[in-house]
């Protein structure tokens, strides 16, 4: 079943004279329960793509449907309503509110939807234990490690069981141990909860955790890779090979 369907999306910035086209007609479709990675060099437009797919930014042309509902052309308020119920976000800079405890941060998406307190607590306990952050639930973001912050951010994205979770360089600010921890947890949640995840990264190791990788170059889709039945290490080799052909940022091992 298709969760997200984007057709011929274009995005350009600037005015008539300084127009710069970042996305040049991209088609994507994402199935339920899929773990998709978007890869590309710096400036290839991968973050822009994530932003328009997740309704934070508007497309210049083209259409986006999520669960059969058209996103393009909707009003700001309706989009907020949509994000509230259907989308979850994980970002590179954690994006936690410094003023709230870990638990309060995680429960935020539920408080918008006016879920009952009991239900909220039950959901919190399950997602927090899955991500291993129960011990720090009463701490503030500045008191915990980067890995814990990012897992908090992930917990917040998962808690209200959204249709799609968007992750923008989630491992970007983490050391390799925390990064692999987080990715393990994410793919676990992806399998267990049948959660759909769209991740942007330029780290091939992170990409190798997903089931499909899309490469973007200069605003267009360059190629696609499917994991299929391969092991993660052989998928990683495929990804690195493609990245080498693609140019841009080289990844040395």
């Amino acid at each position, binding site marked *: 079943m298709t969760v997200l369907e984007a057709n011929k999306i274009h995005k350009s910035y600037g005015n008539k004279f300084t127009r710069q086209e970042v996305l040049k007609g991209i088609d994507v479709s994402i199935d339920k329960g899929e773990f998709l990675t978007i890869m590309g060099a710096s400036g290839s437009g991968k973050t822009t793509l994530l932003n328009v797919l*997740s309704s*934070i930014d508007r497309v210049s042309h083209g259409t986006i449907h999520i669960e059969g509902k058209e996103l393009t052309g909707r009003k*700001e*308020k309706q989009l*907020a*309503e*949509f*994000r*509230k*119920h259907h*989308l979850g*976000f994980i970002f590179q800079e954690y*994006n*936690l*509110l*410094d*003023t*709230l*405890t870990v*638990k*309060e941060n995680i*429960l*935020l*998406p*539920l*408080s*918008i939807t006016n879920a009952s*307190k009991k239900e*909220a*607590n039950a959901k*919190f306990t399950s997602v927090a234990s899955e991500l291993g952050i129960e011990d720090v*639930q*009463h701490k*503030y973001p*500045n*008191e915990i490690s980067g890995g814990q912050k990012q897992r908090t951010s992930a917990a*917040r994205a998962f808690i209200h069981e959204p249709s799609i979770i968007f992750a923008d360089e989630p491992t970007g600010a983490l050391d390799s141990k925390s990064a692999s921890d987080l990715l393990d947890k994410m793919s676990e949640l992806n399998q267990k909860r049948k959660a759909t995840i769209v991740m942007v990264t330029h780290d091939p190791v992170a990409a190798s955790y997903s089931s499909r990788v899309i490469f973007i170059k200069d605003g267009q889709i360059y190629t696609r890779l499917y994991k299929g039945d391969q092991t993660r290490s052989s998928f990683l080799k495929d990804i690195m090979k493609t990245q080498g052909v693609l140019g841009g940022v080289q990844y040395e091992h």
Partner: protein
Amino acid sequence: MNTNQLILRNLHKNIKNYYLYVFALIFSTALYFAFVTLQYDPAMDETTGSIKGAAAVRVASVLLIAIVAIFLIYANNLFIKRRSKEIGLFQLIGMTKNRIFLILSMENFLVYFGSLLIGTLFGFAVSKLIMMILFKIMGIDQVASLSFSIAAFLQTVGVFTAVYLIIMLVNYLYISRQTILSLFHIKSKTEAREKRISIFEVVIGLFGIGLIALGYYVSSRLFSGDFTSIQELFTVMLFILVSVIIGTYLFYKGSVRFLANLIRKNKGGYLNINQVLSLSSIMFRMKSNALLLTIITTVSALAIGLLSLSYISYYSAGKTAESNTPADFSFVNEEDLSVFTSALKEEGIPFNKETIKVLVAKVKIDDIVNGSAASLPVEDGVLPMPIVSDASIPKLNVGENQILFTGYSDAMKQIVQFSSSGTIVLHTATQSFKQQYMGLAKEDVLSGYFTKGRPTVVVDKALFEKIAQDLNKELQFNADYAGINVQDEDIKIANDIFQSLEGIQRSGNSSQFALLNRQKENMGLIMFIVGFLGLTFLITSGCILYFKQMDEGDEERPNYTILRKLGYTRGDLLKGIQGKQVFNFGIPLIIGLFHSYFAVQSGWFLFGTELWAPMFIVMGLYAGLYSIFGVLSVLYYKKVIRHSL
């Protein structure tokens, strides 16, 4: 690009950052210049007349510059913080700190003195208006003229240059203390981010509330007779001030956070949007905000208190004049009276005359005084009091064994409380009469010459005769009271006659109209100065809170981005922000109002006779004007939220 171009470019680019600073500057210069112009205006010499008036204006102008200096330094601190990144960048490309300081100083110089000039012009424009207001308040018929005072201009420039130098010094210290790294990170590091609420904090909070309550309690006892000497009074006042201010600080520091935490704990981590934006953000910043809020609260309390007191005296001017001179004109001298009445007759002004015979006898009042009478000039509970017969006052009738006090001022009520009944002993030279005390009437019967702030004793005609037979000679006035009343429309002419007749304005004779005018003139100048200062207090404290909120808003902008990504609408966020602003602006206002209420309560009777109406008018006006800044800051947040996604 050379340094000059850089300065101009910077100026051009930063004008958005600067506009509030510029506004603050223009505003304070205008205010100061207008005030100083007033000080140097020749017309003022006539109105203030006395040395006292001139001194009051001078003291006020010093106070004014103190407030303005603190305000400008605070505003400057906020704005230099906003430009920390730029300073870091300059350092990164190899500029020396001195060079950066020079650039900033030049830039600041242009902005500062440009605003100073505009402010002066603006101040010049409004100075006439201000003078007109002053004349109106003082009840002076004089046309305010518009003249540019060079002396005032020089003083303004001199004083503001001094402030500029102080600001530069602060900037210099700021820049020289910073490293490149810290300048880049300044925005995320300004707050102390300690979180745990300790028992100690709770104790501190409770202690703070205790101190405030103690201050209030002592203030209510201030003039109750417990403290008699000036030295004692002064010490106690100082004690109240210190205990309330420290209490307020501790209250903000401990209790607010504690209370907020209690609510939060109760929620078990499940906060709604309002709580996210208000409660948690307030708690988060309370530590560093406590001092600022304390200052704002104290300044507001001071302003409201002073304004209330001066307005009370202005408002009660009529009442005071009336209690001093119940009739339009009062006389204690037969000759003067006949000179005046014949002059009135000549002018064809109708009038009526009443004469009241006044005796003085010692009255033992300690039976009917509640509490201590130590503050009264009483020996052994015996007070010499003016006595009149009920026959000379048509409105009052007193029985043979009874006695009534009348013309009792509210101010006196605060010093000594009379019970509503009891027995009183009247002492004449050789005899004493035991009378039943009937209570207090408000009616003013005699002029201030006779009463000297004491109530007048009304007795039955028969008793009055008996007292007259057996007088204690040394206590008596050598005159009777005579009052002249004229029609309302004639009062001005009558007063002119009273003033023009030679020799009759001696002590004891008085004109209510002239007295009222003199009161208004005296009170008017004080009220004007206090009002001016109060307005400055109000606007500077409002601006500081607004700047602070601007700063917080910019700092919290990433939070709004996250929240909007999560699906909160702009409306949701704004609702939370409004809650926060109600707190940020409301709490200092409410506590300030409480402080000033108790301050006014403790000593208002020294200033006038009416309490509630003038106090509520002042408080309402202050709160209204103050709220404007709250609304402005909500509008600013609205903009930040709109641009956050």
